[in-house]
């Protein structure tokens, strides 16, 4: 099994190298010379230009530039933002907890609703409940989530006045230094009354919006996986032994049905991070998705390059971990070698 693990890990290495290559090439294709961006419209003397080019390493052969870039990445150097003049990695690390918190809550929302809905739909196959869940899942799966977000704001915030319209925190009433970067934890640590409630209130709508597509995917997957397992011999045996239906479904069937569901949940990372771009834009959520969009409009290409590299690297890593977990929890692969 260790061999299998190592092979999976080794297989992702070329992907990382190729990812570096893609981001490297993409930024060289982007309109706007990095030197022009630095010097502005006025232009500079040829000597200064040569000096700049030398400083930035642009006078060296292209393959050497790529090696430098790759070397920098391996040492945690993701470039420096043109706009804020701070290292891209630092900006990213400050904003990432906000995205992580949002994505985590969205995933919890999707799992807590999706798995029971899928199990019930499978058990009561063909019932009204089943049809409702499947129709809702189809709608969720087809949802333009940016519109869904606007609808929820319109109804929940504007019409009912239940939730805040945007942001992570009620900054007029509460202020505290970020400790962990996670608002739910920081607000508790701050000991300010109502701060935690405000953090939760700000999280509700964005989590629902971001969790909608994963919810639909998880519900569908749970249902079909459950249906498959319910037809297996060992479930029939368990029933024939006279075990209670709850025990059969909850213990014997669900445990096996969840294996593919866990994989699907893991593979939602990419969906969540892509969805975060839209969700954060709608709710003015100060995370990496919104930052990425803003860096385009500011023409901050190092930020864009570093951000894409970091986000994609995270997705590759999480997918690898999911892959390894799948190997670890699936007895067929585990024992088969």
């Amino acid at each position: 099994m260790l061999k299998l693990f190592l092979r999976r890990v080794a297989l992702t290495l070329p992907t990382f190298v190729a990812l570096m290559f893609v981001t490297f090439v993409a930024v060289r294709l982007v309109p706007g010379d990095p030197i022009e961006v630095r010097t502005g419209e006025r232009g500079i003397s040829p000597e200064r230009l040569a000096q700049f080019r030398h400083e930035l390493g642009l006078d060296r052969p292209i393959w050497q530039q790529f090696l430098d870039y790759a070397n920098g990445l391996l040492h945690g150097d993701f470039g420096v933002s043109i706009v804020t003049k701070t290292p891209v990695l630092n900006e990213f690390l400050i904003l990432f907890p906000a995205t992580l918190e949002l994505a985590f809550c969205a995933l919890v929302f999707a799992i807590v609703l999706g798995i029971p809905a899928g199990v019930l739909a499978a058990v009561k196959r063909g019932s009204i409940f089943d049809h409702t869940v499947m129709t809702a899942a189809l709608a969720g799966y087809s949802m333009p989530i940016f519109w869904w977000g606007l609808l929820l704001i319109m109804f929940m915030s504007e019409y009912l006045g239940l939730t805040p319209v945007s942001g992570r925190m009620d900054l007029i009433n509460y202020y505290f230094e970020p400790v962990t970067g996670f608002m739910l934890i920081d607000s508790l640590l701050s000991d300010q009354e109502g701060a935690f409630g405000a953090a939760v209130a700000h999280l509700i709508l964005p989590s629902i919006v971001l969790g909608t597509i994963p919810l639909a995917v998880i519900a569908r997957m749970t249902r079909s996986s459950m249906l498959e397992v319910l037809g297996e011999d060992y479930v029939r045996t368990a029933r024939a032994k006279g075990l209670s239906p709850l025990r059969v479904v909850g213990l014997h069937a669900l445990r096996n049905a969840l294996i593919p569901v866990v994989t699907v949940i893991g593979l939602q990372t990419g969906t969540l991070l892509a969805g975060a771009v839209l969700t954060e834009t709608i709710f003015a959520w100060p995370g990496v998705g919104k930052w990425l969009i803003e860096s385009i409009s500011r023409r901050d290409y190092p930020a864009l390059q570093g951000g894409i590299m970091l986000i994609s690297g995270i997705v590759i890593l999480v997918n690898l971990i999911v892959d390894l977990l799948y190997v670890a929890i699936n007895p067929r692969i585990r024992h088969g070698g």
Partner: protein
Amino acid sequence: MAGDSMAGDNMREGPAFDPAAIAMVETVPPEVSSLRAFWSAFSENRGAVLGLMVVAFIALLAIFAPWVAPHSPVEQFRQFVQQPPVWAGGSWQFPFGTDAVGRDVLSRLIYGARISLGIGLSVMVVSVALGIVLGLASAFMRGVVEVVVMRIMDVVVAIPSLVLAILVVAVLGPSLANTIIAVTVVYLPRYVRLVRAAAIAELSKEYVVAAQVAGVGKLRLMFVTVLPNCLAPLIVQAALGISDAILEAAALGFLGLGAQPPTPEWGAMLADSREFIRSAPWIVTLPGLAILVTVVAINLMGDGLRDALDPKLRRS
């Protein structure tokens, strides 16, 4: 023809040994050939038929937009700014109301169908064509070609879809044509992977070996012998791919990175509408509803196609 010399050696087998004829006979794909069987399987699924009807309706609206739409999609009726729709106290002159600069929402939605369906179809056609070429090439040539193509596809998959589309648009600049390119890049890997996997599975089958023995040329083997047998899953993926492309393009439009104003693209319409959540909710509601209905209908149709064409996936 490559088989000529061999045919000379096998003269005793008579005229029956014609490589081309054998290849023809062997390559008739079983699923696609019986259209009637397909339709009876497809029409069993009520959701799929409903989806097909809705898609057909929207497609007709899109094709005949200049005749169906009551107004021009870009003409601004300055004296009728933010008119509510007819069910909310508006007039029949603008059945779905007008937007913030007095453009007829219904007309913009109808013309928007052209753009959204156009993007969906273009992305689908281009990525299926490229997917077939790259997928077959990596299945048949293996070696370096396969490694390079599949590694590139791995990278494309690793970058979250919308982030990749944003990167492509950042390189090329925001426009409708670049939206199509960006979304094509995003969805190419699934077609390449699917064609490659299906082709590799087919390659070990006897009819392919027979065709090879008969001396069928490589290109013919790829496109005439093997490809038709990979079509069923490809058609299903292509149908579902249209709806994904529409969603992705609308998201780009919403972020201001897709179609530029005053193009009546549904996503871009939503982006413009954000400030009017309070004052003119129909400007927000209707374009999103149009996207949702279109995507749901295409997905329903795609599910029906899958059940009818791909019996392996038909379960539950």
